[in-house]
């Protein structure tokens, strides 16, 4: 990659981080924490984006960031109070900034009216005379000697005319204290044309009075150059204020012959080496000062994702190899040797630990994902005229980054739903005795090896009679179907179901909760609803922490070894005679505690055998699919329970219906991982949804 292109990639990555910081900071400010550190961090975020954008000539981004930055600077100075209205503008400006970053990265159209609107709004706030205190009082006293100096690039005079200048220059000690040197300045001058320099040494005192830090020398120089006076002044740009300087254009006719003198030996006295201890004092002090702030970035490194994935794959290999080795050793009967047995145990332990540590590398906090949601809430609250507050909890919970990436869309949809369908309008809320402002709570927490994400609203809750009526009207269930509350709630996830009579353009967008459910399932997750009429609804997502390993039950089916994901298995049982019934020509059900559950012969469903096996000869696994639908899967035997490394079947072959992925077992052979939902769906294809629901 072209190095500038690579830097651009970095820039956009950094933008994402800065936008996250910006949002977090602004939200904190809105909640009332206007401490310097927060305000500075917010300012810095916009400033950095602007800086990088300038380098890549992203003019629209620069322009917007600049106005934004200026307004933030006013807040930083105390010239603008971070009142509620101001903060609202800031948050919206952050959204526009994020959009501009996206457009700059991906191209595409951008509607300038929104950014112009915000620019006007920001400028309006800047003009507010609500100044509480003077800006930078410590600077006010200073006469800014640089303000007069423009920072425009030096313009070249094209006139062939030769100008002559007389330059009188007398450095102050400060000039040297800032690392500038007369010799360099003279060298710069000599680049502009023919230079003659004369050093005045009259002021140099006798040695006894000589102060090493003082400056005693001065220079008179004559320069003949095509350049205009601004170019000559520009040479002294950095030392303005640190020297006496007089630059006079000389009439050409007056050109006089100055006695030529060598540039004087360097006048800056050599800095006396200080004891090192003295140097470390300010640093220690500074460290102590900054100590409380703690910055994680210091201790992180950025690693290419491919490298991490390669490492994860290799560790996966190691796990398999270790299992194979153990099996071989067992087969060879060498475990009688205690030291070999201990060695193998240790190896297994270490391998697992390495695996867990490596998996942890891919884990990331859900914070950025949650931060994005606050914007979604703002937008939809604006669009629906609802007053909403988003409360987030557990943003630090870490999940595999792929899970996070693929969670963004379903989560966005669910948040939109919660505001659009879940929450009532302010007047309706007040009428119901609730505060006008609705609340959506988004939380993440680790629970027994999985992460549970909840989206809860304090809105109206699910109106079950209405949901049921709609489902009947749409033909999703039989008119006389008897459904439990849970089953009615799960109707929301059925394809073709939408409670809004007219699809609103907010929650609509052509996807329903069925799509949300499918994407959660594709991540190996489950989704569940709890709801109380008048009090709100909670959607909980239970997701695996990583997509790379899975807890599975190893089973035999028609001479094949398969792995069934443990999280879908409710219980295992051995069918007794009289519990299995035929239902029609090609389906069987099993009676479990008074209910009937479809019985699926996995070997038959996958085409591994052409006839159903005798249910009495096998074991059944009672599973629950994500819709809460229960099925009994029949396998020949259960072999083992273990964690397996997930291998893609799709990279070299493709998707196989009924199979989620592959894994490698201890004997080095491949075993397929069952997609229980797909097996249930394909096997119940002949059944109507109401039959399925009856099964519960």
């Amino acid at each position, binding site marked *: 990659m072209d190095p500038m292109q690579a830097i651009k990639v970095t820039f956009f990555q950094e933008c994402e981080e800065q936008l996250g910081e910006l949002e977090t900071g602004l939200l904190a400010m809105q909640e009332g924490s206007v401490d310097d550190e927060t305000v500075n961090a917010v300012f810095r975020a916009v400033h950095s984006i602007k800086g990088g954008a300038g380098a890549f000539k992203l003019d629209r981004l620069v322009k917007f960031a600049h106005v934004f930055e200026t307004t933030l600077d006013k807040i930083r100075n105390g010239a603008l109070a971070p009142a509620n209205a101001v903060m609202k503008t800031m948050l919206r400006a952050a959204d526009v900034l994020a959009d501009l970053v996206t457009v700059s990265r991906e191209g595409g159209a951008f509607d300038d009216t929104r950014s112009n609107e915000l620019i006007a709004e920001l400028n309006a706030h800047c003009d507010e005379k609500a100044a509480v205190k003077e800006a930078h009082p410590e600077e006010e006293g200073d006469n800014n000697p640089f303000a007069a100096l423009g920072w425009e690039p030096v313009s070249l005079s094209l006139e062939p005319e030769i100008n002559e200048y007389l330059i009188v220059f007398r450095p102050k000690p400060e000039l040297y204290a800032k690392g500038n040197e007369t010799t360099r300045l003279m060298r710069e001058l000599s680049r502009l044309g023919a230079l003659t320099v004369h050093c005045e040494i009259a002021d140099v005192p006798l040695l006894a009075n000589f102060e090493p830090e003082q400056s005693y020398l001065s220079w008179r120089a004559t320069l003949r150059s095509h350049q205009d006076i601004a170019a000559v002044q520009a040479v002294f740009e950095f030392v303005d204020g640190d020297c006496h300087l007089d630059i006079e254009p000389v009439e050409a006719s007056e050109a006089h012959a100055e006695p030529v003198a060598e540039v004087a030996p360097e006048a800056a006295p050599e800095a006396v080496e200080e004891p090192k201890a003295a140097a470390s004092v300010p640093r220690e002090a500074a460290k102590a000062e900054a100590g409380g702030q703690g910055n994680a970035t210091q201790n992180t490194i950025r690693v290419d994702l491919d490298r991490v994935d390669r490492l994860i794959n290799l560790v996966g290999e190691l796990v398999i190899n270790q299992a194979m080795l153990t099996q071989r050793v067992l087969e060879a009967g060498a475990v009688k040797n205690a030291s070999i047995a201990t060695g193998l145990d240790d190896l297994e332990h270490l391998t697992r630990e390495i695996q867990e540590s490596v998996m942890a590398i891919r884990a990331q906090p859900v914070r950025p994902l949650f931060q994005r949601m606050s914007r979604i809430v703002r937008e939809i609250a604006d669009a629906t005229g609802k007053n909403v507050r988003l409360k987030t909890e557990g943003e630090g919970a870490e999940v595999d980054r792929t899970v996070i990436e693929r969670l963004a869309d379903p989560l966005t949809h669910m948040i939109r739903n919660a505001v659009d369908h879940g929450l009532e309008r302010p007047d309706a809320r007040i009428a119901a005795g609730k505060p006008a402002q609705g609340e959506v709570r988004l939380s993440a927490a680790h629970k027994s090896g999985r992460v549970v994400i909840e989206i809860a609203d304090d809105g109206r809750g699910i109106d079950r009679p209405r949901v049921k009526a709609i489902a009947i009207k749409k033909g999703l269930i039989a008119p006389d179907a008897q459904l439990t509350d849970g089953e009615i709630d799960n109707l929301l996830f059925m394809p073709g179901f939408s409670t809004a009579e007219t699809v609103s353009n907010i929650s609509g967008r052509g996807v329903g909760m069925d799509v949300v459910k499918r994407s959660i399932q594709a991540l190996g997750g489950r989704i569940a609803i709890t709801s109380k009429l008048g009090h709100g609804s909670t959607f909980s997502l239970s997701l695996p922490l990583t997509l790379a390993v899975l807890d599975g039950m190893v089973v035999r089916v028609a001479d094949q070894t398969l792995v069934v994901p443990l999280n879908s298995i409710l219980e295992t049982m051995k069918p007794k005679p009289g519990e299995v019934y035929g239902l029609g020509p090609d389906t069987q059900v099993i009676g479990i505690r008074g209910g009937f559950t479809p019985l699926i012969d996995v070997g038959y469903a996958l*085409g*591994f055998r052409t006839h159903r096996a005798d249910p009495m000869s096998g074991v059944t696994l009672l599973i629950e699919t994500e819709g809460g639908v229960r099925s009994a899967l029949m396998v020949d035997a259960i072999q083992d329970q273990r964690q397996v490394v997930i291998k893609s079947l799709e990279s*070299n*072959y*493709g998707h*196989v219906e009924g199979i989620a992925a592959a894994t490698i077992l201890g004997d080095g052979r491949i075993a*397929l991982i069952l997609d229980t939902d797909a097996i249930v769906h394909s096997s119940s294809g002949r059944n109507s949804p109401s039959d399925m629901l009856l099964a519960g």
Partner: protein
Amino acid sequence: MADMELKASGAREYITFRIGAQYYCIDIMSVREIRGWTPATQLPRAPGFVRGVINLRGVVLPIIDLADRLGFDPTEPTARHVIIVAQTGRQVVGLLVDAVSDIINMPAEKVQPTPDVGSEAARAFVLGVMAIDDRMISLIALESVMPTLAGEAA
């Protein structure tokens, strides 16, 4: 370098192998390795020529029974059978063949068009033929024998 001279003259290297009594070859540049047969894990609802998948150092490798694919009787694999691990694009597969016989150099102009025969498999899977000594060797169209990847098919 010999390799570069070959390229300059338009000659390529091919790996030849036997299926039954017939000889076939593929471009050596697409061959990653050659290994003995190991039992494969059957895939549900796979076409007959897909023998299943094996573990190739952690990669799930689909095995294509080339005999079956070309319209012969399916192979009854034994330990003497060979898997040629071949790659086209990003897809890696194992080709189950009876035996690998040779590596040959062949200038491009010596590859003749496939004779017009009735066999559909021959037309679909053979790019061209070449003569070596008294044998005819058919050049396999690797892309065509591969199973279609999911997602690309639709």
